């Protein structure tokens, strides 16, 4: 895939250089010492290259949109993501229209009005009507985008614990790992502060708080499909950011305060794996990994594991040396599977009493 682009680039450069050398010859032929100021030949040539350049730009843009379409994230796995994706689509289409029009005008004018001795520029300093038009059009378009965006934003950020029966999960971040704490049966997280960190109580839960007793701490994030999940985020050391791209969700995790985000998963891990998009993507990735493994084996290293898709949560705020590998697996499953999984986990009470028994 790189080959195609590289060829175009090299070809364009070739032409450029060839034409440059022609200019050198031409300018020497005229017999005037080169003043290093653009003359008519320069203008002619550079104007033409301008046109070639906008063609290159269009090819590059087209190539990216076609070749990299598999890079776009798959259909959203969360409810609010539907609105998000629609707004994104509208915005991208809009800006690409503006991009295509303005770039071609800019470079085409550069080509069309390339200077020569006989040309006379038009003294054209002002036109109130024209300027009014191109002020008012962005105003209207942007007003539309702003209103749409703000409604969606308010919907996403409006987190109400008393509405429905949300799952309450604390996301706990530290250099360089994530942990999840579920509120348990009482749907209420126990109090916590870094000052309670001791022994097995690694995330500083207040052991004297009765609400904390049924809390469940896990290092995998399991979520029931179709139920709203409210995340309460806490960091013990530096800034982190909980980024879950497939759910169109991100919120920074800030030491000293609790930040919140909420969404409703709508696609289970299994459903996402079965989607056409993901089947194709995983296949491509596994081919790449197979190729790489061959090289590794030849060098005497371990081959790479084949890849199966899982949702993930990754850290997206620089947090130190291993920032690049601070992740947690997310599993979205049916309500029954989720409950069964939760039951298997130890509660906070069980964890600390086990420690006390020792």
């Amino acid at each position, binding site marked *: 895939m790189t080959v195609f682009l590289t060829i175009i680039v090299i070809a364009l450069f070739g032409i450029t250089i060839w034409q440059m050398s022609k200019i050198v010859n031409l300018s020497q032929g005229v017999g005037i010492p080169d003043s290093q100021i653009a003359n008519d030949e320069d203008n002619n040539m550079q104007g033409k290259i301008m046109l070639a350049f906008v063609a290159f730009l269009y090819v590059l843009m087209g190539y990216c949109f076609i070749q990299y379409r598999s890079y776009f994230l798959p259909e959203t796995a969360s409810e609010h993501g539907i609105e998000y994706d629609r707004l994104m689509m509208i915005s991208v289409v809009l800006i690409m229209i503006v991009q295509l029009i303005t770039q071609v005008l800019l470079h085409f004018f550069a080509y069309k*009005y390339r200077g020569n001795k006989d040309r006379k520029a038009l003294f054209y300093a002002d036109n109130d009507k024209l300027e009014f038009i191109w002020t008012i059009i962005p105003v209207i378009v942007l007003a539309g985008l702003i209103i749409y965006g703000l409604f969606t934003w308010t919907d996403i950020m409006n987190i109400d614990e008393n509405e429905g029966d949300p799952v309450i999960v604390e996301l706990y971040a530290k250099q360089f790992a994530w942990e999840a704490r579920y509120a348990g049966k009482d749907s209420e997280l126990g109090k916590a502060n*870094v000052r309670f960190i001791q022994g097995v109580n690694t995330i500083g839960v207040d052991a004297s708080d009765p609400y904390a007793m049924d809390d469940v701490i896990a290092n995998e994030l399991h979520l029931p499909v179709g139920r709203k999940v409210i995340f309460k985020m806490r960091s*013990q050391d530096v800034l982190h950011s909980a980024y879950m791209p497939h759910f169109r969700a991100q919120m920074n995790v800030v030491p*000293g305060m609790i930040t919140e985000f909420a969404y409703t998963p709508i696609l289970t891990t299994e459903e996402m794996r079965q989607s056409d998009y993901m089947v194709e993507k995983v296949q491509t990735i596994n081919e790449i990994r197979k190729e790489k493994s061959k090289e590794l084996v030849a060098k005497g290293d371990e081959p790479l594991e084949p890849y199966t898709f899982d949702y993930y949560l990754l850290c997206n705020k620089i947090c130190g040396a291993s*920032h690049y590998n601070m992740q947690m697996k997310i599993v979205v499953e049916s309500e029954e599977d989720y409950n069964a999984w939760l039951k298997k986990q130890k509660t906070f009470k069980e964890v600390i009493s086990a420690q006390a028994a020792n």
Partner: protein
Amino acid sequence: MSATAVHADDHAHEHEHHHKETFITKYIFSIDHKMIAKQYLITGLIMGTIGILMSILFRIQLAWPDESFTIFEIFLGKWAPDGVMDPNAYLALVTIHGTIMVFFVLTAGLSGTFSNLLIPLQIGARDMASGFMNMVSYWLFFLSSVIMVMSLFVEAGPAAAGWTIYPPLSALPQAMGGSGAGMTLWLVSMAIFIASSLLGSLNYVVTVLNLRTKGMSMTRMPLTIWAFFVTAIIGIVSFPVLLSAALLLIMDRSFGTSFFLSDIYISGEVLHNQGGSPVLFEHLFWFLGHPEVYIVLLPALGITSEIIATNARKPIFGYRAMIASILAIAFLSTIVWGHHMFVSGMNPFLGSVFTFTTLLIAIPSAVKAFNYITTLWKGNLQFNPAMLFSIGLVSTFITGGLTGIILGDSTLDINVHDTYFVVAHFHLVMGISALYGLFAGVYHWFPKMYGKMMNKKLGYIHFWFTAIGAYGVFFPMHFVGMAGLPRRYYNNTNFPYFDDLQDTNVLITMFAIMTALVQLVFIYNFIHSIFYGKKAEQNPWKSNTLEWTTPVEHIHGNWPGEIPEVHRWAYDYSKTREDGEYVIPGQDYAPQTIPLQENEEELHH
């Protein structure tokens, strides 16, 4: 105004009498604005070389992770054992690359160079209001550059918390090695840099307000001066806030205060800090950080306005609208900082407010872009290298600016925040655009600075390779970001999901290396032309502005005789009389010093 001009005249005569300059007063501790401009430019270019080299190093790492390279061993030494880059070194490289490019190259190197060179020359002043302050400003900048470069050699590594140095990461040496002595030096360097920037900015504002020559009303000033003037004002408003942030951070780091720290457990112990908030730091940082974007960009846009008009042989379209846009951008730039913090944990209502103000800023930006395009329309375009870079700037400014509409929308920002989409966006809209502005300025005013011409063919090669390379690097990068790839990742191999992005990362690195290599053509052209370039004429680009009425040889006080008087605005290119003949027959431009001709009307632009 005239009283000042007369006074300045006396001053100049005085200078002619005792014209004893030593090497030190002429080349080192010079108070002549033209020499200070050159000092800024060369320091900026050296810092730029360091910054770009760093980007190449980390691009190589991203394209071929975990592989060994001799080039790493050469430049990174112990930070690349056996030629494999250390993760801390990677973070340090991106951090210092960002710091150097934003502050040392694009703030000081661009605005410092051209504000110093052009403000006195284009408004008709003998020098800056305070030559001494100007000199101090440069030398503080030099000192801060030296300290920043020195910090690279600290035992535990230079600052590595990202150029935004968010605490607690930047406050706690336990969190990363770079937050020790390296961060201290970073903060000291920046504090000095801010002092330098403020001295410079105050000088620019005072000079523009007080030292304009007779006839040079505010609405006759070239757009370059408007841009520098407004940039200086934004700098004065916002840089002190960064200084306060830096001071508070120094206190948190060294004196046990808790402005930004609270509830922290690190290296097995709880810190005493209580009640501070990292979000407060983010507010303070971005209160400068966002205007900073315009501090970088406005001078480039001002330079471009002047160069496009001159080389299109046409007045800039919508002069008043351009000034209004500059003012609107300047005002709005101080109330949009929160768009960097949509997901920082601040109140979502604030997110709504900042979305609104942010998308508003697209309006004056759009007006500027349209005005540039219209200026080209029906022109007589002279494609000097400076003109090419100016058109290139308009192109990247549009491409990069448009994606701002996505990032400025709080909703859409959620999923592209801190991904490569952001990296692509800001590099195009402020990095590449401002660099194009810098190059355009150098090519255009080189004859004024050095009395020589730069080689145009090398200029053409420089531009086209850079233009292709810049788009080749940053356009595909948007798509990598849309895939959800976070920035500042040392490598992506821990996420098999990103395996199919690797080819594109290689492609981007190839383009980056090519683009960086082409800059050598520029460096060669620059140095070679200083010594062996063709001697310049007084007004090579047939320009209207005042700097081209000074002699090619630099003299203290700029004009040998009296300061010229100004009779018209700077954009009377191809202005014709009613019979179709140019205002000055046979010449398609009317310099600002030419009085209005018979039957000629001055337009109320």
